[in-house]
């Protein structure tokens, strides 16, 4: 039994942790506070100055932001679905010990983790396929994430063959076995891969920046980038009237950050364990 006595070490250690907590939270709470401020916030305090909801009113009226939201949702949905199917279809055969060419195919896949064509050849391939300004350009180039594939395969390797044997004797095809037997017992790892892929798609912007031209197809992160990083007034959809009343675009930037990040921050605490599980599974040496 450990001796449960709180010593000097515990006090210092707890203080360090609280310090870290403050450092982690401060930048986020600061943005939150600015988003509710009516005037430029000065000082270290985290309370909004001249509390107002006007910033939210302006941001909610920004049509581009809502277009971005819906495009990102479409992207996440399509991306997650296609990635999951193709990853399962690859991971399952590769988890079979006696699969012919297994070594060659595994090497073929893993090699891409260490060497790739780089930005320019990838761009040329996507453009040559005629995918410029197509939503497919946001999904196909990252259809399979090799790391997720390996994690999935490692999980499937731990499923005993005996589970499939009865079905095999009944004449079930491997496709039936995969979707009727394997998938239901692999829900934890599937959840992890789904969440990884969803977050990846939610946060992606570079591919949209180089491949997507139409405003109507633009994703949330890129619209956010125009507002927050490039500070484009037109992207903030400030009318002349708004531009006059809003003293400082910082407040609009902060509000836009809050609105577009809220979905992730709210769902994150409930989903966190799947992410953590995934990274632990993934870090176990094969």
């Amino acid at each position: 039994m450990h001796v449960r006595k709180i010593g000097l070490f515990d006090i210092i250690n707890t203080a360090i942790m609280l310090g870290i907590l403050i450092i982690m939270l401060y930048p986020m709470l600061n943005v939150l506070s600015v988003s509710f401020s009516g005037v430029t916030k000065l000082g270290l305090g985290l309370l909004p100055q001249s509390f107002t909801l006007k910033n939210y009113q302006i941001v909610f009226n920004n049509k581009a932001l809502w277009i971005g939201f819906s495009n990102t949702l479409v992207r996440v949905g399509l991306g997650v679905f296609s990635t999951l199917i193709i990853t399962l279809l690859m991971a399952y055969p590769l988890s079979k010990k006696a699969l012919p060419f297994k070594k060659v195919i595994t090497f073929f896949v893993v090699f891409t983790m260490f060497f790739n064509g780089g930005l320019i050849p990838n761009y040329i391939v996507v453009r040559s396929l005629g995918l410029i300004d197509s939503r497919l350009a946001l999904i196909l180039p990252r259809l399979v994430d090799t790391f997720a594939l390996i994690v999935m395969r490692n999980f499937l390797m731990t499923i005993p063959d005996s589970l499939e044997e009865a079905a095999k004797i009944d004449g079930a095809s491997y496709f039936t076995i995969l979707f009727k037997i394997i998938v239901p017992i692999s829900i934890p790892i599937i959840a992890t891969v789904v969440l990884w892929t969803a977050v990846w798609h939610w946060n992606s912007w570079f591919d949209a920046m180089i491949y997507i031209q139409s405003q109507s197809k633009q994703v949330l992160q890129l619209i956010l980038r125009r507002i927050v990083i490039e500070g484009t007034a037109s992207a903030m959809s400030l009318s002349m009237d708004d531009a006059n009343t809003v003293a400082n675009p910082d407040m609009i930037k902060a509000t836009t950050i809050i609105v577009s990040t809220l979905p992730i921050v709210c769902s994150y605490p409930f989903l966190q364990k799947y992410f953590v599980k995934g990274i632990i599974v993934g870090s176990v040496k094969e």
Partner: protein
Amino acid sequence: MKQTLLHTKKLHYKSLKGYEQLLLMLVPGILYYIIFHYVPIYGIIIAFKNFSFRRGFLGSPWVGLAHFRLMFDNPSFYEVFGNTLVLGLLKLVIGFPIPILFAILINEIRFTKIKKTVQTVSYLPHFLSWIVLGGMFFQIFSIYGPINEIIRFFGGEPIRFMTEPKPFRIVLVSTYVWKSMGWNSIVYLAAITGISPELYEAAMIDGANRFQRMWRITLPSLTPVITVMLILAAGQIIKDDFDQIFNLYNPAVYETADVISTYVYRQGLEMMNYSYAAAVDLFKNIIALVFVFGTNRVAKSMNEYGIW
């Protein structure tokens, strides 16, 4: 057992019978890897050609090593290359030990609520894009922002973090640590959980205090994980973080912040020097590969822990 293994092995060289369905399942994935990974790898040949979209990978004329000569004659290439190494090293030296320390300290926290809260909060930034974080940190590091407020409070001169080359390095390294510290500690925390409690009990009977236990048991038990993570991290030195730098930098800080990936992007996709940019990128990718294999070798020669 051994016999059946041998038996199946013999069988699968003879025929693919029974495996047609499984091999069929692999087809879409393999096509994906060919089109989106191996065709671009083949496309690297444009580094030795003058690429134009009209002529394609195959039809563009060969120019030999012309782009590499151009690269080595170009002072801005050296600047970019140096920045990449400096930032990579800074991030490694500062960013690598912190998650280990953080994991060890978190593990020693006895109040479960504090422990859980710190963990949850510290993992969160991993899920936020650099665009969101960029927006947050522009305010934090601005001339009237909280950091400069503190500097003023202690009587210092405010620093233009975002527009002065040297202070901008601080921004890059500290925001990197802020974003990745929690997430990178997960692996170590998992490894610490795996340490046998008997070791600690034996040490306590021998009269070891908290620090001795951390130093003599926790840290040595983590060595294999630390080695593997160090190999991976060292291999990343030259793979700069495009998302971070591209969203935080501006021409005023190119002197210290422009790195290979941002340079390749601007050269290739903004100025459309496709072949030249591909040559620079290829050079980086080869060095990165050498780094990963090199560090793995070193680790293997020191102890038995390697990544493969």
